[in-house]
């Protein structure tokens, strides 16, 4: 007989997956991220919370170089995944994004069949040698996306014909089809109803066994429900970063307290 942890949030310390040091982001002359140091653990859900415009999405997008696509955006500092600098010139952003998958706020399935939505990534990255291989990847991804049972009989139907919650789980399945190591989610549930939200949250918790998941959310209750670590951003600063249980019961910084208790910050 061993002592069970008091809550499921008492997770073991995991290895550092992503390490960010002195990260600065500028949009033109606007200083959007100021001197952020942050270690994100493997096999852990890390939530980024903070008011609109605080920089949490910007910082999330630094982690798979999505900011490269914005001309006026400039990123400084070091971000490494498993010790490798992702901003190194030799790193191919496309390969990086296969390793660091992303799910967006609005479900955005390709206007293709459910099967092709999942198969697209593995195909362009050459992950499947045969049709049978591809079939297996599609089934496995849809199963891990917790949507297999709902779509297995209509894999040829368009992905856009699914409900919002199903589309989002399809997008998550699509993101994990390339076997990423990190999954970034930018408000993945804000367009979903409470039932679909619960399903996605349950999925996030299952994905934690294999991936490092980073989720940006405006719902503090969602951050409290799904994450083990929480980072609070405010005006481009990482104000507080720690165990979710601690952040929501006894935060150190008064700005964190004001934000999570719904006071004017």
């Amino acid at each position, binding site marked *: 007989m061993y002592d069970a942890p008091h809550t499921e949030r008492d997770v073991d310390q995991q290895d550092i997956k992503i390490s960010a040091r002195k990260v600065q982001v500028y949009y033109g002359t606007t200083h959007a991220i100021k001197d952020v140091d942050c270690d994100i653990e493997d096999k852990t859900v890390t939530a980024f919370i903070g008011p609109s415009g605080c920089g949490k999405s910007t910082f999330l997008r630094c982690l798979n170089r999505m900011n490269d696509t914005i001309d006026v955006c400039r990123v400084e500092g070091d971000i490494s995944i498993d010790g490798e600098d992702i901003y190194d010139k030799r790193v191919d952003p496309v390969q990086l994004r296969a390793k660091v998958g992303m799910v967006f706020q609005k479900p955005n399935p390709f206007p293709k069949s459910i099967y092709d939505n999942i198969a697209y990534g593995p195909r362009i990255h050459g992950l499947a040698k045969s049709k049978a291989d591809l079939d297996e990847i599609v089934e496995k991804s849809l199963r891990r996306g917790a949507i297999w049972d709902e779509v297995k009989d209509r894999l040829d139907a368009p992905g856009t014909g699914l409900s919002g919650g199903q589309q989002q789980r399809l997008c998550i399945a699509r993101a994990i089809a390339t076997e990423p190591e990190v999954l970034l989610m930018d408000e993945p549930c804000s367009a979903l109803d409470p039932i679909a939200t619960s399903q996605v949250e349950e999925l996030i918790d299952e994905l934690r066994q294999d991936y490092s998941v980073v989720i940006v959310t405006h719902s503090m209750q969602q951050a409290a429900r799904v994450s083990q670590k929480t980072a609070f951003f405010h005006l481009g600063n990482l104000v507080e970063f720690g165990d979710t249980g601690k952040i929501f019961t006894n935060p150190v910084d008064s700005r964190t*307290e004001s934000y999570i*208790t719904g*006071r004017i910050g």
Partner: protein
Amino acid sequence: MSELKQHIASAFDRDLEGIQAQIMKMGGLVEAAIMQSAKSLETRDEELAELVRRNDAAIDALEESLNEEAARVIALRAPTASDLRIVLSVMRMSANLERMGDLSKNIAKRTGVLVQMQAIGGTAPSLRRMAREVELMLKDALDAYIQRDEALAEDVIERDRDVDQMYNTLFREFLTFMLEDPRNITACMHLHFIAKNIERMGDHVTSIAEQVVFLTTGRKPDEPREKADRTSTDADLAPDMDKDGD
């Protein structure tokens, strides 16, 4: 902790203020119950004792309403951090206050019996002084709660030692009276229960003061205190029964 601003949702502030106002009201009723029960004992005032017994229903009703309100705030507002600690501390404090009300009521009941008997030395005034000390501790604990004054709460916790020592002294006195004359035994047993009740009330006040520390800091008070009430563990606290045999 820095002074927190108001919530964006002002109804949330009103909810929290509401339950805190109720706990203060409850605290006021309990303060009165402690003093009135001790006074009724000292002045052998049966009417006052009866009043204490009747007023306990109001304390019980407040506890029930507080628990309902607290549950409602948790369900509807999902409080976090210091807000959550307010709700949790109010629920625990209301349980402490309710027990203190019961203990006062029990003192008042025993007063009803004791007025039929002869007074035992100067023990009634001693009990009243002890009750007065507990009542002051409660007042300070409630002030510390409202002012979020951690230092005052720590002071209250410290003062419980004095109450424990007063109890030890009374315990010895009762034993002496009982040894002197077995006819004192019935009264002394009642008086001893009263002393024990007051000592227990001191423990409840300590628990309330600990809630204040929890509320302001998010932590329990640092060290477990050594109990000063040693009557249950030390045999030599009792008067020397072999004295005559020496």
